[in-house]
């Protein structure tokens, strides 16, 4: 199951906004993929989950509480390679709109009812001439066990 999300609530903190997915209806024992849309502000980029240089801070989602869901491995989209004035070689970055996908497994004996997976998304943004301190924003995936 892969759920397309609608923009219900956007969590922004600086240069990146993440849209919370709508409530996901899940079945016990099933796997579920949840799309997490994000938008980088125009004129900025954020490092991808696999930056080109060791010193750069990667994009990363870490789940802090997942309730009846297990796993939560995140698939990040293919980054773009962009050359900036301050780099000799292109950097692996995200710009504009992109989507991450979180993969969960519903516990076989999960209690029917609502729940929420909560995570922290850490990123670090730059423009073409300056960089900004790393920031962490909250990501919420509401679900309903049927």
């Amino acid at each position, binding site marked *: 199951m892969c759920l397309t999300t609608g*923009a219900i*609530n*956007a*969590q*922004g*903190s*600086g*240069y*990146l*906004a993440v*849209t919370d997915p709508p409530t996901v209806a899940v079945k016990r024992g099933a796997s579920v993929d949840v799309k997490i849309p994000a*938008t980088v*502000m125009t*004129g*900025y980029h954020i490092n991808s989950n696999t930056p080109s*240089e060791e*010193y*750069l*801070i990667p994009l990363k989602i870490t789940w802090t509480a997942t309730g009846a869901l297990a796993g939560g491995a995140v698939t990040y989209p293919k980054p773009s390679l962009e050359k*900036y*004035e*301050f*780099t000799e070689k292109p*950097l692996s970055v995200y710009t504009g709109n992109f989507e991450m996908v979180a993969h969960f497994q519903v516990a076989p004996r999960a209690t029917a009812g609502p729940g929420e997976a909560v995570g922290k998304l850490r990123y*670090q943004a*730059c*423009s073409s*001439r*300056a*960089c*900004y*301190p*790393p920031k962490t924003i909250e990501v919420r995936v509401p679900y309903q066990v049927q």
Partner: protein
Amino acid sequence: MLSPRLSAPLVSALLAVLGLAACSSGVRAAEPVKAEKDRKPAPDFTLKDADGKTVHLSDYKGKVVLLDFFATWCGPCKIEIPWFKEFERQNKDRGFSVLGVSMDDDGWEVVKPFLKDLGVNYRVVIGNDFTAQAYGGVDALPSTFLIDREGRIAAVHVGLASRKDFEDGIQKLLETAAPGGGIVPDNGGD
């Protein structure tokens, strides 16, 4: 569709643009540094260097100082640092010093290897929020302040600047004879 919480980034971007425009208009016109009458005192601070020694900006009274706020994760900072090494080497005997202020949350654990890798030949301290706020927040890195011999901010460069802008500013300030000093008193930076 996006919530009002997005207003913060928009405001940040606007402020950043306005801030850059303001810096540019104040510094880059015809002169590499502000006119003396337009210079404000550089806030003093008390921070620790890599050896644990206390450093006050006021220790540099009578010198021209290039104060560089940087971070190890900042690409544009890595472009400027080799220039600053050269400025330090060329001008240290003329009453000039570079002072780096790292804004890394992880402190010396990440900063010391970084300085070693880059062969940094000038003094570096670890910054804090108090110091950053005193210098206008310092959200964008690098942010570099050229401070005259009287402890006044003569030029501000937010983001990657040109090497020539720095060179011209330093030379202009070094041409001025050392006076009595004007760094504002320390308000407690530890």
